[in-house]
Every structure is written in C-alpha cells, then in structure tokens.
C-alpha cells in the first residue's frame, strides 16, 4: 500500500474512534456533532459504529479467502493458497472481535452475554468454520494437498453462509433487527433509520475498517511470503 493511503487510513480511523466515543448524545440535536438520543439504546448505540463494521470485515475476509481458494483450484499456484490462508487468519481475528463486541452489547441491552439469537448463532458457526479450516490444514502434511483440500472446504463452507445470513433469521425469532417478529426491520438488508450525522460516521467506519482489513491483509501476505522464502532457503542448504 502507498504511504499516503496508510497515513490517511490512520487519521480516518482515529477520527471515527473520536467521533464514535466522544460525540455527545442529546435529545433533539442541534449541531452537526451531536448524536440523537435513542430510547432503549441510549449510549450503547455507539457500538454500532464499531461492531457492525467489524462484522462486515469478517465477512469480507471470509469471501476473500474463498475467492483465493477457488483461484488456487483453477491455477494451482501456491501464492493463491498463501493469500487464502492470510485472509482466513485475519478473518478469525476479526470474527473473535465481532463476537466479543457483540457479546458486550448483548449483555447491556438484552441482559446476558449470549442468548442464541440467530445472528449470534451465525457468528458462532463462522468461528467453528474457521476453527475447522485450521484444524483441517494442520491435519495434512503435504503442501499441495493441504492447499487443495482446504480450498475445497472453504468453498463448501462458503455456500452454507447464505443460509445463516438470509434464511435462519427469518425462521427463528431473534433479538437483532431484521429477525422474525420485528416488523420494522424486515428484509435481508436493513433499512437505516439513523440520524444523518450518525449514518455518515457509520459509513465512514465501514469504509475505514474495510481499508484497514486490506492493509493488514497485504502485510500478512508479505510476511508469509518471506517466511516461505526463508523456509525454502533453509531446506536447500
């Protein structure tokens, strides 16, 4: 990544963190930096600026891992496998973060850290898929076979994800917006009913976290390339 992009991402994310945490929440906001006070959510509504973009980045990481897995199957180039693993390991980290931020929010809004709401179930399954993916990788010694089989597994796991995102919340009653029984927020894509300035910060955060993911991803890929190179050199000596 270019230097100016790195600097602007850092400034961008810092701005979002400041805005998300420090902007006051008042009834009837007047100025641009005041968020509206939402009954029932109160100050906890700030979490939407962090929790949702992290969950979004988790899904992006998962799709990237699946994409590079299928590219490996087509081209049989080990570099694609390396990218697939890098994205999956970042996805695991983001998935844990999304689960934790969600659990904390659930504790203070719904009363307990975990309630088996459909979306909580989905993120738990995503954690299990990542876990199974890395277990499968550690169970195979041969490099090319490991790359092929883990790519196939990520594709097979990837096609079940729509069932979690679109189907399960429709048939199970849940607490997240968009679940069964929630008349206001029906439909796979939520209607945004946030105030304009909050919506701006929210979308800025979505963009910020996505770019941050790509930055971390490129770093991870470079690191793994160097590691593989070092390994090859030590093997030949």
């Amino acid at each position: 990544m270019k230097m100016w992009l790195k600097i602007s991402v850092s400034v961008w994310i810092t701005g979002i963190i400041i805005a998300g945490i420090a902007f006051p929440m008042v009834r009837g906001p007047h100025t641009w930096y005041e968020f509206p006070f939402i009954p029932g959510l109160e100050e906890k509504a700030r979490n939407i600026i962090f929790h949702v973009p992290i969950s979004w980045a988790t899904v992006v990481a998962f799709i990237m891992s699946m994409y590079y897995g299928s590219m490996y199957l087509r081209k049989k180039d080990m570099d694609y496998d390396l990218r697939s693993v890098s994205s999956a390991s970042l996805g695991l980290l983001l998935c844990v973060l999304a689960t934790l931020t969600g659990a904390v929010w659930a504790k203070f809004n719904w009363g307990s850290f975990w309630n088996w709401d459909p979306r909580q179930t989905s993120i738990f399954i995503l954690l299990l898929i990542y876990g199974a993916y890395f277990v499968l990788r550690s169970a195979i010694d041969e490099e090319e076979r490991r790359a092929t089989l883990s790519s196939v597994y990520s594709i097979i796991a990837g096609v079940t994800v729509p069932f979690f995102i679109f189907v399960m919340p429709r048939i199970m009653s849940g607490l997240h917006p968009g679940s069964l029984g929630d008349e206001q927020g029906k439909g796979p894509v939520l209607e945004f009913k946030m105030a304009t300035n909050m919506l701006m910060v929210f979308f800025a955060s979505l963009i910020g976290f996505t770019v941050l993911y790509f930055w971390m991803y490129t770093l991870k890929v470079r690191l793994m390339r160097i590691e593989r190179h070092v390994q090859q050199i030590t093997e030949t000596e």
Partner: protein
Amino acid sequence: MTFITSYHIFIKEFVSEFRTRYALNALLMFVVTTLSIILFSIGKESPTQDILSGTLWIVIFFSAMSGLSRTFVAEEERGTSMTLRLLVNSSSVYIGKLFYNFILILVLSVIIGISYLLFIKEFTVKSFDIFWMTIFLGSAGLASASTILAAIIAKANTKGTLFPVLAFPILLPLLLTCINATKLSTEGAFMSEAVKEFQILISFTVVMVATSFLVFDFVWKD
C-alpha cells in the same frame, strides 16, 4: 454413460458392504447404545417434546458421522482408490457414492425413528407425514454434505475425529431446521405449516450437491 457407471459404483458399494456387513452392524449397535443411554438418562423424568426432538437429531447426526465417513476412507485403506480413479470418471464415483450414502443414512434414520417412537413413550408424534418427510429430507441433506467431506478427510492424516469437526458447522442449518420440523410434527401441525422448513431442507441439499459435484474432481484426482 455416467449414469450407468454411477449405477455400477452404487451396486459395488452394496456388494462390498454386504460382504463384511461392517458398517451396518456397527451402526445398528451404535443406535442401540445411544438410545439406551438416552433411556437411562431420562429415567423417571418426563422431558419435553422439544428436548426429545433435539436428542433424536443428535442420535441421527452422530450415527451418520460414524457411518458415512467409511465410504472413502475404506477405499484408501484397501488401496482400491487408484483402480477406481483409472476405471471411471470422477463424477460417476461421486454420484454412486452419494446415492449409496443416502440409502444408508435413510435406512438408518428410519430405524432410529421407529425405535425412538417405540421406546420413548413421552415422544408423541401427532402428524406423521411431517415426521417422515423430515426424516427423508434430513437424510438427503446429511448425505449430500457428508459425501464430499468424507472424500476430503480420506486424504487427511487424522481421519476419525476430523469428520464431525468439519461437518458440524456445515450441517448446523440443516439440523436446526430438522429439529424445528420435528417439533412441528409433535405439536400436530398441518403439512402446510411445515412447507417453509421443507423448502430450506430441499434448497440446502440442492446447493450442497451442486457445489460438491463441481469441486469433487479436485479432491478425487489429488
């Protein structure tokens, strides 16, 4: 051509199974064991229908896990996979094995279903059409996902424990829907109320079979 060869693979699986009767005997004993564990643990309590529909699918899931992984692992152990790879194309191997797995798990779940209804008195199914339809579609879904996973783990080093670990996250939407549908059948719902569940089960199976059909070649030829 593919259909004839897949049919032959299908027959071959049955012949080699009935020569040893390993899978069938082991699975029947597995069913007996798990059912008696459930009976012992219930004791004199009277559990709710929801818990019993859950345990029914636990029994089916784990017996499927112990039975279905055999198809490809046995091929590797006997050293016959190379011959099979030379003789027939991979899609007929996949289709043949898929149907064999489906029949195996269907017979197994029907046996589990009947013995569950017989031995556990608290479990009362009011609408049998939903119950048997769930068993049928659930078996199809289990077979569709486990066939490709069995092919994957046949190439890995630790075969036994890996299968349920890989299968669980993928099969969870299926299992949850099956448990929901079984609950509906114990509540005496009409067929029209369970259509949503059946649609999910059918679409899951179709998506799984289509994807596995596309990627099976990479696993098998590896």
